[in-house]
């Protein structure tokens, strides 16, 4: 009974899909104006599938019902588009040209290897990702400060958290386009009084890179800090007291006690932060648009421009897919390394 329902729903869904495919390719006249009905068909199919599960498998079906909605949603919104993305990546498809999409094989991949702007953006990602270590150092300092015996801890904690709440786009204007503005921005004025005659934050490559990084750090240091603070607060007090009894100074007890205990938390937070750093785009798009000469470009902001300025969907997707593969390889290696490293130290 339940199985029959699933089979029936699958057949119905497949039929609608087939009709729409034939309609789009022009084989038959019957069909829908757009693909929206296929989406509804998928929704109906998921309901039928869930009901069928319960009818066919009883108690186990009821349990599967908890997981099914999230799984079916993710399959529809991630797995399918990603696979579809690999297909687009193999096309020569420019939305602004009259010729429609046509198969290009590995053409995009070959183009990618000769695209110096793309490799330049990847090089910049190396800088931005390494800069996470700097963010981590500052955040660790702040977490230690908040963990000390201080008054008004609640106030400082709320204040230190605030930058995390702000939208990177708003921050782009607030800091990048006004505080760091060349003529009237307070940061430029301050730099002039400190003796830097020409405080252009976005004119030369390295200064621009550091300015972008500073803004991103400003937004994301609170996240690292909060995670580290939670780790510090979970640390048993006796350990530090024992170190003090043994005559360890502040630096020594940090170096030999606090830091090793915090290592697992540190590795976790660094990995999460790197994952988010690899998505960096908003600030770059809005402050420098990748300039000067691509010096601040991230992979995401570069692909954004490939699409926005050149409407090159096929090539842009190819770049993105290659980037995804590189991220997966990098993270797998990092995970292995960090696991081995923490085991060795602990």
């Amino acid at each position, binding site marked *: 009974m339940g199985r029959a329902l699933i089979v029936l729903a699958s057949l119905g869904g497949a039929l609608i899909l087939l009709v729409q495919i034939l309609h789009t390719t022009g084989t038959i006249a019957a069909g829908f104006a757009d693909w*929206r009905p296929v989406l509804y068909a998928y929704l109906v199919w998921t309901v039928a599938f869930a009901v069928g599960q319960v009818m066919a498998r009883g108690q186990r079906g009821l349990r599967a019902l908890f*997981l099914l*909605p999230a799984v079916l949603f993710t399959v529809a919104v*991630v797995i399918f*588009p990603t696979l579809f993305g690999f297909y*687009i990546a193999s096309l020569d498809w420019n939305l602004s040209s009259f010729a429609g999409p046509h198969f290009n094989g590995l053409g995009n991949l070959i183009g990618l290897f000769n695209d110096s702007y793309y490799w330049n953006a990847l090089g910049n990602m190396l800088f931005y990702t390494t800069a996470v270590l700097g963010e981590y150092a500052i955040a660790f300092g702040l977490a230690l400060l908040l963990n000390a015996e*201080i008054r008004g801890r609640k106030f400082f904690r709320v204040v230190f958290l605030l930058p995390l*709440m702000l939208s990177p786009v708003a921050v782009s204007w607030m800091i990048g386009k006004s505080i760091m503005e060349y003529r009237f921005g307070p940061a430029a004025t301050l730099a002039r009084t400190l003796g830097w005659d020409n405080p252009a934050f976005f004119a030369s490559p390295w200064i621009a890179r550091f300015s972008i990084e500073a803004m991103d750090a400003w937004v994301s240091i609170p996240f690292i800090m909060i995670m580290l603070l939670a780790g510090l607060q979970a640390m048993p007090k006796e350990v530090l007291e024992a170190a003090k009894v043994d005559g360890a100074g502040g630096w020594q007890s940090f170096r030999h006690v606090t830091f090793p205990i915090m290592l697992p938390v540190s590795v976790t937070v660094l990995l999460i932060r790197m994952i988010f750093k690899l998505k960096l785009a908003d600030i770059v798009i809005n402050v420098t648009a990748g300039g000067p000469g691509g010096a601040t470009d991230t992979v995401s902001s570069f*692909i954004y421009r490939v*699409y926005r300025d050149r409407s090159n969907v096929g090539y842009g997707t190819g770049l993105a897919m290659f980037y995804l593969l590189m991220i997966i390889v990098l993270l797998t290696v990092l995970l292995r390394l960090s696991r081995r490293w923490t085991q060795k130290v602990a």
Partner: protein
Amino acid sequence: MLIYGALLFWAFVCLFPIYWTVTTSFKSAIDVTQGHLVPWLDFQPDWKGWRSLGLSPDSIFETSTARAEFVSRFANSIITSVGASLLALVLGSLAAYGLSRFRYKFGWMRNDDILFFFMSQLILPPVVLALPFLVLYKALSLLDTRLGLILLYTLTALPIVIWIMRDQFNAIPVELDEAAFVDGLSVWGAFLRIVLPLAVPGMVAAFILSLVLCWNEYFFAALLTSTDAKTLPVMVASQTGSQGINWWSMAALSTAAIAPLVIVGILLERYIVSGLTTGAGK
């Protein structure tokens, strides 16, 4: 003493950009070019920036196209972020409860593999999905609709909701479920009537965190909306280039865009911290 010096310095670093933006929205051109900082002391505050948005006391009752645009973007932001957070909370809580209580087997995938499958969505950079979605949404007539954005934002928030809620459910003893079964409740009855009410703090934390993520999202919104479904960040971004030295109106717009989350951050800091630190220190 040194400690308080450092604390105050960093508090200044955190607060100055916000202070600067709020005060600049009350400045006129000459105050901007001369770099005045303190209202009433070195410049006379004026509603200039807010008037350009149609939100100052003297212009609030007149019709204003700028205000109409702002209100529609604000409404889009609220609808998409709240809608997506609610959807993610429903889908995520169900999946998290299942993963915390039952043993699943989908082919070779066990519970840990399924959890990893959900969490691995986090590494997907938005660019990977953006262009396929552009093509798909065009075919589905979902381009430039709020529903289209809600679906994508749900996806961004889902892994975090599952992570937080699974931890939350793991902390609730299984004996409670078993007692409910003895009382004759089904699996779903036990979940809805006994366990879920106990998990409310975690749900609040997960909801707020996904709200923050969705409210601030720019990349998808910039690519997938054009007129109807534009959100606040897209509006802020589209005006940054064109305004010249019209800093007062940009400042007013930025202030309005960050204000809701600054208030949320101040009032609900506890939940944000508990959501972020789920699983840390264990």
